[in-house]
């Protein structure tokens, strides 16, 4: 391990307040094997850098339409981008003066990223640290492991947000370097899981059981994102909670409220969002009801701060 391992990241967000204890910096690692219909970070799914169009600041100068690829055109006061035609994505980024066409991610070394994250070290001192998110951090498992080792070497608190959709050996080698593992467990039923995420949940279920039986189980927080009709059903939440509390009665569990804002990200995405007509976030009373279901299914340690 040299710190020279390169990885593809699509964002570094400082002052992250929803990804673990204290004030954190979250590194978003690109690529994910799942295709969850509600994905909040669809820009993190593809494993390669892509050209993205952020319409807001476009001044319709037309400079990009002169690029030989011919992937952009202006009609009716609007710019349209045909990703299929893009051959030289970086050229669009360089050409666009308003930074509305730009690469959605960048390659960097573990060492550089650690240095960048450590800029907020004065804030971490009061309780905080780094969170690796995605995408799926274990989609680039070697890189994630390299980052975690460097962060622990620097004495920084580490959290990882993962779907556990990875080979267990990769997870196992990283566990000693993770202070908090936020493990998503979305749908208990194997067939329904496959329908909603593109993959069945055998590997995920298997990994979660192993992690919750390992010496690191007190560092784990199991999370279910509440997606209307998909995950937020009595049946599903009960099944998840029965299962995880049987594996480890002291398991920590958190429900993440539905986030309607994610839909807006799909305007320029090749994926479709799960709801054509968006749903509202759950009220406090509804959230309390979901937590009641979790408790009656055997989970004692509920993380309810967001309520």
């Amino acid at each position, binding site marked *: 391990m040299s710190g020279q391992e390169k990885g593809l990241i699509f964002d570094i967000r400082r*002052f992250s*307040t929803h990804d673990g204890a204290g004030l954190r910096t979250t590194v978003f690692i690109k690529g994910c094997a799942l295709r969850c219909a509600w994905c909040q970070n669809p820009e993190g799914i593809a494993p390669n850098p892509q050209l993205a169009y952020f319409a807001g600041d476009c001044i319709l100068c037309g400079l990009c339409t002169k690029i030989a690829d011919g992937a952009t055109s202006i009609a009716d006061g609007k710019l349209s981008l045909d990703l299929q035609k893009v051959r030289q994505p970086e050229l669009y980024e360089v050409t666009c003066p*308003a930074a509305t066409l730009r690469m959605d991610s960048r390659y960097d070394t573990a060492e550089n990223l650690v240095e960048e994250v450590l800029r907020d070290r004065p*804030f971490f001192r009061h309780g905080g640290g780094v969170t690796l998110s995605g995408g799926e951090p274990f989609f680039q498992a070697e890189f994630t492991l390299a980052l975690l080792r460097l962060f622990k070497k620097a004495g920084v608190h580490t959290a990882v947000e993962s779907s556990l959709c990875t080979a267990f050996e990769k997870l196992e080698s990283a566990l000693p370097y993770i202070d908090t593992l936020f493990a998503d467990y979305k749908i208990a039923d194997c067939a329904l899981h496959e329908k909603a995420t593109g993959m069945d949940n055998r590997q995920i279920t298997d990994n979660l059981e192993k992690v919750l039986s390992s010496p690191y189980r007190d560092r784990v927080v199991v999370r279910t994102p509440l997606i209307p009709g998909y995950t937020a059903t009595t049946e599903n939440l009960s099944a998840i909670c029965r299962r995880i509390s049987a594996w480890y009665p002291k398991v920590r569990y958190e429900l993440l409220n539905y986030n309607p804002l994610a839909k807006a990200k799909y305007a320029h995405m090749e994926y479709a969002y799960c709801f054509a007509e968006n749903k509202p976030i759950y009220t406090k009373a509804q959230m309390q009801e979901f937590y009641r279901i979790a408790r009656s299914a055997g989970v004692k340690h509920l993380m309810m701060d967001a309520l």
Partner: protein
Amino acid sequence: MIPACEEVEKAHIELLPSPFLSAVIQDCMKAGVDVTAGGAKYNLSGIQMIQVANIADSLAAVWQLVYQEKRITGGELLTALCDNFVGHEVVRALVQHKAPKFGNDIAWVDALGTKWAHYFREKLTQYKNYRGGPYHTGMYTVSAHVPMGENVGATPDGRLAGEPLADGGMSPVYGRDCKGPTAVLQSVSKLDNVLTSNGGLLNMKFLPEFFATQSGIEKFAMFLRTFVDLKIPHVQFNVLRGEDLLAAKKNPEKYRGLTVRVAGYTAYFTELDGKLQDEIIARTEYGSL
């Protein structure tokens, strides 16, 4: 500027003597001389620096786009400024979006602000005020960045002629601090405190939702503790939602009680000048990220 300051001080002696203030300032009573007339032991005069963030952003744009990348020439930029960027939209987009900005914890950009603030402070050491004391500097604008902006032409950071300058004095230009509040504090902490011996001012705006949970409040406390660790002389917060301010501007009768921090004082939002209202609405909002 110095002769103008002297005229103001002369006028203070004549028109605004402050006997009560003089009674509590060292040596005025002993000398029997009013503080405005130089009776105090320390006869400082403070001059405020406004638009330090605009200077850093402007010079960063010139450095990056004219000298480093050579995407535009100095002549092109000058013409664009003289024309207030009209017909030079590409140049404006470049300086706005393709050059780094103060307030994002980028060392070389922040250093530009510090460097020229020090330059100004150095220049002032050559002068004495009318009472024989030294000039020192502060970095706060109260609300002066709005009227002063009206007298400043287009700037190489993409700001149009007449638009407000950076608010606060130490604050980044609103909307340009894209790395969040921790990066703002880091950038502002790079400004040497000797530059703000006459006071400094940093404005930040948070959304009320941030304080809705116990953990949000605890995280804000951590943020404040780090602010202290970073030895920044001042910060003040508005905890407001942009939409509420827009609604208050439209229907002031419904929002008479809405107060905002302006600069060292709290004001009723509906009583502020429309331009200052717009300026407060435009300040970057930090929510739960």
